[in-house]
């Protein structure tokens, strides 16, 4: 049970000026980090931003070309073994052996970590149970669904409880249900005291899971803070309105523009409009009353801080990867609240 004390008990990762280049490409280009121990830290950025390279460097799989980093006080270049025995990495692509069964994968890794054969078997059984894979334990991994492979992958990373776990895009490509399962696991890990560093292209995922977020673009951290701080830095909130009838959208746009006194955007969803507003709830209430009076039926509306999508746009001047934005924001806003 006892976890040995860290050199700096409050920081899981410290980095300054970290650089990793592949030829001409500076995939990580001068990153400073101070990741507190405990909780979830999110790297948010579009494809090619340098997220994978950054965590592979921190997990000692790549050698930095500049700067330095410490994991729980251990230098990633000078003390790689000390780092390796405290962290584990679940890569972006399945890092389990498809030609073995789920149970065999876990037993193999348990043995490699130094467990006796009996202990390794016991631990494998325990993890398969906990991750809902008990039934599938004796099947070859190549017959698993994407969600099952991901869970096995994470299970494989925590056979010996790591103090810090890197999860590289743990939910990319998963259906909403599997994604929720992974989120559950992440929350359970944190509850047990493990620090989680996860990367994601999904804005809502970072928003929901991460205590602190670093927004990464072109190998640099362009913003860092809690989700609330990031949103506040963009300045204003937003109102989103969904209509019953798409035919009424031009009308709604006109009425809202008038009532709110700001430009109203038509969203890609044909029944949705949105606008940036200050925190003036009253103005918004008034605007909605105007819609009701004009006979424009509203099915749903929300008033809140800007989405991380908007934050990204405001910070970088370009939207985050289009496809990822589309399916991350829509999916399951409601079902998760339950």
């Amino acid at each position, binding site marked *: 049970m006892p976890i040995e004390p860290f050199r700096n008990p409050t920081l899981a990762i410290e980095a300054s000026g970290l650089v990793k280049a592949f030829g001409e490409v500076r995939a990580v280009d001068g990153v400073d980090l101070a990741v507190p121990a405990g909780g979830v830290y999110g790297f948010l950025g579009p494809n090619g931003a340098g997220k994978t390279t950054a965590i592979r460097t921190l997990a000692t799989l790549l050698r930095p070309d500049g700067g330095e980093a410490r994991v729980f006080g251990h230098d990633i270049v000078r003390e790689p073994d000390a780092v390796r025995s405290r962290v584990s990495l679940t890569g972006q692509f399945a890092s389990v052996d498809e*030609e*073995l069964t789920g149970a065999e994968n876990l037993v193999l*890794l348990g043995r490699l970590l130094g467990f006796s054969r009996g202990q390794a078997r016991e631990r494998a059984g325990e993890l398969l149970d906990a991750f809902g894979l008990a039934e599938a334990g004796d099947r070859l991994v190549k017959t698993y669904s994407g969600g099952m492979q991901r869970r096995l992958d994470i299970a494989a990373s925590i056979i010996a409880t790591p103090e810090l776990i890197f999860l590289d895009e743990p939910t990319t490509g998963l259906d909403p249900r599997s994604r929720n399962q992974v989120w559950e696991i992440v929350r359970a890990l944190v509850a047990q005291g493990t620090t989680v560093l996860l990367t994601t292209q999904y804005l809502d995922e970072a928003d929901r899971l991460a205590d602190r977020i670093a927004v990464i673009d072109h190998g640099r951290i362009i913003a860092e803070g809690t989700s609330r701080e990031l949103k506040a830095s963009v300045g204003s909130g937003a109102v989103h309105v969904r209509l019953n009838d798409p035919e009424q959208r031009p009308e709604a746009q006109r009425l809202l523009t008038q009532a709110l006194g700001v430009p109203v955007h038509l969203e890609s969803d044909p029944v949705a409009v949105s606008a940036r507003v200050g925190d003036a709830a009253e103005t918004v209430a008034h605007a909605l009353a105007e819609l009701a009076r004009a006979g424009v039926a509203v099915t749903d509306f929300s008033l809140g801080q800007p989405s991380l999508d908007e934050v990204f746009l405001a910070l970088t001047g370009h939207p985050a990867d289009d496809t990822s934005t589309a399916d991350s924001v829509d999916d399951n806003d409601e079902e998760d609240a339950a």
Partner: protein
Amino acid sequence: MTTTTIEPTMDAVPEATLRSALSSRARPVRASALSASLSFGWRAALKIKHVPMQLFDVTMFPIMFVLLYTYLFGGALAGSPSEYLQDLLPGVLVMTVAWITMYTGQALNTDISKGIFDRFRSLPIWRPAVLVGMLLADAARYTMASVVIVTVGVALGFRPDGGPVGVVLAVALLLVFAFSLSWVWTAVGLLAPTPEAVLQMAMTILFPLTFASNVFVDPKTMPGWVQAFVNVNPISHLATAARGLMHGNAVAGDIAWVLAWCAALVAVFAPITMRLYAKER
């Protein structure tokens, strides 16, 4: 051919089970180099268990070789198949095992392209264990191929004068050589872009090595420059040594030559392999 995947629900798992599985516990002490290597050997054995067809190259391939060479060339080269077999069989054994060493490189190359290799590399274990474990499992495959070939040979009329002890010694020497030669393919496996490229490169080396040797015919009929190559070729020395051990007339010089070649191969290619292995990708 369709496989239905039934997704087990996680919702059914009680919170407590998840929490207790995740709760931190003392880390085990680091696995020893031997234990880590054996674990990787176990991994290779499991793969064979799941896909036994993988053993085709160490069973059918050698049988075909012995049958083809004995009956195609036996009469022409040595007067009769059974006479030829006494000389040929140790040679075919050497040649077959030399050829199947190249699959080591292919398997390694395939492995690297998968995420599992990153996981192995990020474990706090003795670094060469992955490779050593793989080579250990391959030694078992080579042994199996040797047993198959000798058995088929005996069925066809091969009668080693050195008896079982001679045969075992010859196979042991062959295993040492195969283990040493495998380091060449692990280096190639780490360098080559694809598994196919590994096999192509390996064949380019193995064809001249096995055919420009004394495995099939006495080099006396060959032109001088070919003879010069045949005489330094490790496969020739190994074939001569294996014949000697099996028939009870081994010459220490040949065995020494083989062992010297083994030492040289490991001394050169094991460090190259380890350097390539540690290199990031």
